[in-house]
């Protein structure tokens, strides 16, 4: 009986071999997976385990916290965006409240993961916008590092910044104003950003030269949610404007 099994199994392989002559895979290397889709039912044990969390999370995520008065698109190739300005301002204002010497903030377009629609904004939308667990930090940069930050903005043709302006010329030169003033050689600057960018994320290598990086003990997402909630409670809409913070001269 056992012998038969093996023999027939082997014969079967031979048959497959003949049948699959043009197939580069042997019969033992067919599809290596099963797709998980709605042809499958739910496992009741797993369902009863996750149900309470699903309900709780849905309620949390669907909570409307503010109203956005204009669509703010996630754009990656514009020098300046409504969404970038809004979030850079939120970070700058928070850092400024913590340390009155804060000079500017810088973020990255790539890190803002979704667009904000005009209308009601839910907690879930902010999670889509900022899914990462990034903390807000305050970096101390000297003049020469600030020049590298300026070079970086030129090379990237803009990133979200607040309390700073840059004009990028055709020849690659640029004029950079922080606090409405040109950079001063003897000054150190406090730049608010996230721990991800401060550790060199999105090619922000210049942060490696920071004299100090101080955590401000809040996640960027929590900060955004807090800002939106405050606006919502005060019945003020979420709004943003293009202000020529990054100007590319033609």
């Amino acid at each position, binding site marked *: 009986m*056992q*012998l038969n*099994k*093996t*023999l*027939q*199994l*082997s014969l*079967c*392989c031979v048959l*497959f*071999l003949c049948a699959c002559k043009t197939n580069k*895979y*042997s*019969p*033992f*290397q*067919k*599809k*290596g*997976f*099963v*797709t*998980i*889709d*709605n042809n*499958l*039912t*739910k*496992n009741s*044990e*797993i*369902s009863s*385990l*996750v149900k309470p*969390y*699903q309900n*709780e*999370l849905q309620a*949390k*995520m669907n909570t409307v916290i503010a109203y956005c008065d204009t669509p703010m698109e996630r754009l990656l190739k514009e020098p300046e965006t409504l969404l970038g300005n809004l979030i850079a301002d939120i970070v700058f204002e928070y850092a400024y409240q913590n340390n009155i010497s804060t000079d500017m903030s810088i973020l990255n377009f790539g890190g803002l993961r979704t667009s904000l629609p005009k209308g009601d904004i839910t907690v*879930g939308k902010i*999670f889509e916008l900022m*899914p990462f*667990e990034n903390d807000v930090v305050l970096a101390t940069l000297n003049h020469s590092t600030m020049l590298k930050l300026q070079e970086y903005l030129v090379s990237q043709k803009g990133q979200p910044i607040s309390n700073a302006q840059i004009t990028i010329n055709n020849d690659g030169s640029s004029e950079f104003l922080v606090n409405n003033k040109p950079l001063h050689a003897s000054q150190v600057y406090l730049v608010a950003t996230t*721990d*991800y960018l401060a*550790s060199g994320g999105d090619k922000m290598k210049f942060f490696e030269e920071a004299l100090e990086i101080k955590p401000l003990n809040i996640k960027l*997402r929590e900060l955004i949610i807090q800002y939106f909630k405050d606006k919502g409670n005060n019945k003020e809409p979420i709004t943003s404007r293009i202000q020529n913070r990054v100007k590319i001269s033609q």
Partner: protein
Amino acid sequence: MKRRTFIKQIALSSGLVLSSGYLSAAVHDKKYSKLTILHTNDFHSHIDPFPTNDPKYPNQGGIERLGALVKKIRSEEENVLLLDSGDIFQGTPYFNFYNGKIEYQAMSAMGYEATTLGNHDFDNGIDGLVKQMPYAKFSFINSNYELKNTPLHDKVVNNKIIQKQGIKIGLFGLGVQLEGLVLPQLYGNTKYLNPIKTAQKQADYLKNEQKCDVVICLSHLGYKYDSDKIDDLKLAKSTENIDLVLGGHTHTFLDTPTPVKNLNNKKVLVNQVGWAGLRLGRIEILIFNKEKLGKSETKKIDFFHKKNILV
């Protein structure tokens, strides 16, 4: 009838056939045993299916369905091994609010036996990982992170041996270099060791010393890089004594496992099933018992080896 189903299953699924002189007492009277390996990688907290309007994966995935599929396969197969290749954490608000607890609880309920550490499993720091581990009834296996100076030192094992009705399965795990990928304060004193050297050491130990019938590497290295960076394909090629590499990290959707010739010109299968619980990997392994095979059967198996059908 049963035999037909058996053959059909082999024909329909991916697989690997091994000859073993080691088969333990429990299966000594059988000519072969079959092991069904189910696996996932990069689950990324995808408890719920993707929304129905998702452009890429509408209404696909979902842990409740995954659980149903696993249960069904368990009712059909004798020896089922359920494994994961890391990055269980991060990717949906479930992780932000519950820190991985539900993922671990559901995976435990499904009967997962082991996972390895992915880079995102460090996203709440080592402390955040340790805090959720009591909810996991499966093993955490990693062999190339030195963890002795971290709180993980007694919670992660270098390797693990699992017996399924006498089939002896040796597992070890490999993780990606964390530097530059994870913030240093999150992985603390975790030290990255050379994955190839570590893999060879583990595979030799499991195959030669422990006489495992099957050696499986749970990898979070990534499937393939054009650079010199070590990946699953390079790993399989430059080692011996590994039968199967179950990978992750690069979210690679492989329709069929990739066969790779190892140092000894023996075939190793490398598989990876995308991410987010969209697919459940399934690989069948047949283990022949050399001592129980007659001459003609051995000949046939040898023939298949030569024809590259059997590994």
